[in-house]
């Protein structure tokens, strides 16, 4: 599956980036393709493009705050989890995708 994801936490210093790392690792292990956009203290990085959206099957939002551009994913199935969940149990998060 092709996943687009966004991670964002209140201070944007640490958990945003850890969640991104964990999701990438778990996705690769499960054989998915993933692109993770981080919205942290450094602003938006690795931004999801129009092309990414076109090719995506599902969106994962690991966020504790409202993120910029959530409406981009309207056409996709969206799985929303707290950041901590993505860090602690990234596999369980991805299990929600089904197959």
């Amino acid at each position, binding site marked *: 599956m092709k996943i687009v994801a966004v991670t964002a936490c209140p201070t944007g210093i640490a*958990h*945003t980036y*850890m969640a991104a*790392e964990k999701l990438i690792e778990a996705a690769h292990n499960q054989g998915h393709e993933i692109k993770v956009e981080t919205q942290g*203290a450094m602003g938006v990085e690795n931004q999801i493009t129009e092309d990414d959206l076109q090719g995506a099957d599902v969106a994962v939002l690991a966020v504790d705050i409202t993120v*910029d551009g959530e409406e981009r994913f309207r056409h996709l199935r969206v799985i929303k989890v707290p950041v901590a969940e993505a*860090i602690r149990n990234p596999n369980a998060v991805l299990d929600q995708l089904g197959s």
Partner: protein
Amino acid sequence: MSCKELIFTCELIHGLHARPASALVALAKEFEAVMELENLRTGFKASLSSALSLIAADIAYRDTCKVRVEGSDAQIALKKLKKFVLKELKGFDTKVLLDDNLPSLPPSLRRLNLKHCLGHSIGGRWVAGIPFCLSDQSHYSNRDNLAYTGIAGERMRLLGALEQLLVNIRKNITKAELDTEKSILNAHFMLASDQEFKDRLLNYISEGKAAHESIRKTLQYYSEKLETAENSYLRERVLDIQDLCNQLLQLICNHSVERADALTTPSICLADNLTPSQFLALNKKFLKGLVLENGGKASHTVLLAQARGIPVIVGVEGARSLMEQATRVILDAKLGVLIADPSEKVDRYYQQEAERLKMLERKYQPFIHREAKTADQKRLEVGANIIGLDDAVQAFSSGAEGIGLFRTEMMFMERTQAPDMDEQYGVYEAVVKVAGSRPVIIRTIDVGADKPVDYFELPEEQNPFLGFRAVRLYSEFLDIFKDQVRAILKASRTKSLGLMIPMVTTVSEVLWVRKIISEVKQEMTAEGVHFGDVRLGIMVEVPSACMIIDQLSKYVDFFSIGSNDLAQYVLAADRCNDRIGELYNYLQPSFLRLLDKVVKDAQSKNKWIGVCGEMASDINTLPILVGLGVDEISVSANQISAIKERVSHLNSLQCRKLLDSALDAQDCKEVSELLKNTYSELAPRPLFDLSIICIDYDCLSREEAIKQLVDMLYLDSRIADSTSIEEAVWLREEFASTNLGNGIAIPHCRSDLVYSHSIAVLKLAKPIQWLPQDDSYVDTVFILAVRESDTPDSHMKFFASLARKLIENDFVERFRQSVSADSVNQLLRTELKLNN
């Protein structure tokens, strides 16, 4: 369309009440965006369009709230809102805080399930000890059933007691060990010999009252009169009258002055209130701390305790029941808290505090007896403000490079007549002796309607600050002024002193003073009295003087800027008036421009120029003062080493640049922003280094770990204030635990009180449970402190890289194997690809 959120803690002591709520509504009105607030404690929601709904959300002190902002201008609205809650919200408490000074406990203490009560903090140390409740002070005055002896007899009785009282006080004055004790006893002597006091007592006798009844009536009369006074200083004089009346009653009844309850073991004492004499009668050897349920902060008893270094807290409601049940208490005079039966955790908190103070002392110690110099070797003398000999001794042992301001009026206040030449000479001479080769500037008396001295008999004025005061009254009180000049000249025999005139407005005032000085010299020569030479200086505290520095320079040797009065006059704002408190600020660009002119004008005439007044003691404005290029700052003794340390980090050229920007700023808020923002540039710190890596730390809880890490940041001058940073970290912790589950926890915060981005590391001697419900233990704690700024800088990426590393198993393994601070430092450096 965008949507933003903001989480904040309500720092208003009385919760979000009507005024701040209305201000929030006014702010929200400026934007199209819809703003909704949720009180995370209660779950109540409110709209920022209605003040009533905000009040109904029941937002109490320290409640965490979330505001959701949705709309086209959400981004700017959020920014404005954030600025408001961070910077301005607290301002709605100002009046309350100034009046009551309600303490706020740091989270690392507050979270420990304390049995405590709060009082008013007066500052000072903490102390632990056995509680002892002193018996009620009024009981001995009920034992006076003396037979009535007729008007003449009672009159004799009363006058006899009054005379004996004066004898006793005089005896105590000679026995007093400290200046403060002497001056308070002098004040009592003055009160006891007051004619009105005596007349009132005798009036009651003539009405047929017994002596003891007259005393009670008189006490009642003054209490009622003073207790309703607006001025808290006056209100607290009730205690002094009570003291005298109690002593009179005792003399009449022939009771001994000793208190019934003499202390026999080291104790923390509680009393409803204590009179100065009752305090003096206590055995200081055993008096470790004092809790007054009802006392005021400005009472003479508090001053006496402070002079002895005994921690005090006052206005502590409920202290008695707490103390009666406790077997051990901690009195923290700095935080204004009394803690009963402290738990092990509380004791450990205070051990940590003790360690922090020790480290702080160690940090400042090397600077005590060092000349203050900037990083680029520019000199800035750091002198001290004093009011007497005790202060001078303390100032020099704290590292004063001179006395920049000796406020002599304190020697003239609270007594019946001015101290004569010999008494003054004795004090000045003693100060000169302590000073050794260091300079001393003595300011001649600065009294007037605002600082009243009874025997000057000055009429009340409508505008005391603009009236008959300081140098303006010297010609009318010529003898007193001449005595002072004579004493200063005589004390200059061994060393040239600075004689400084307050409130100079015109050149002719200086010429007049010079004429008087030369007259006094002629008189002394004629009398064969030896004297030395003085350097003549003036306080620059009246705007008109600022405009004629070049003319004044012809007749004076030095200048000292009195920032308190000068700022009031320049800004036309009374600093004691809360409603215009915003205006009175020595960071106002207009005021800074004037200072810049004054310093430049003085230095172009090669005149020495210093700054005394609060501005000089405010460590945060140091870069401005260094930028101005003044020769000296005169500060309170306890600030000296910290100021010298801070100066050593500053670069004078950068400070000048900062000042130039400040002179162009729109208002004082912009200047304080500039000061905050540039501090990290003026004294940069690397992201981490050995000073913020601590190994094998003995720690039992999350509270201890966070406190230790924040203390480490503070000790390394990386944050402006420990408590605020702790609060920010706990705010994040409460949102969601920062335990990563692999033995590492990463508490963190983003704040503009962080001077430099920092990563501090604490490896624990034994693993701890981060949260009670956690199944995984934590043995390593990182604190990530990010400097809040509008534009993210390049260093931010290191936090992101560290975060990514911390969940990599092999990094964690290598980190775990690094057992020394050096190897931790090295590993982080390599992994984060930090150069040097």
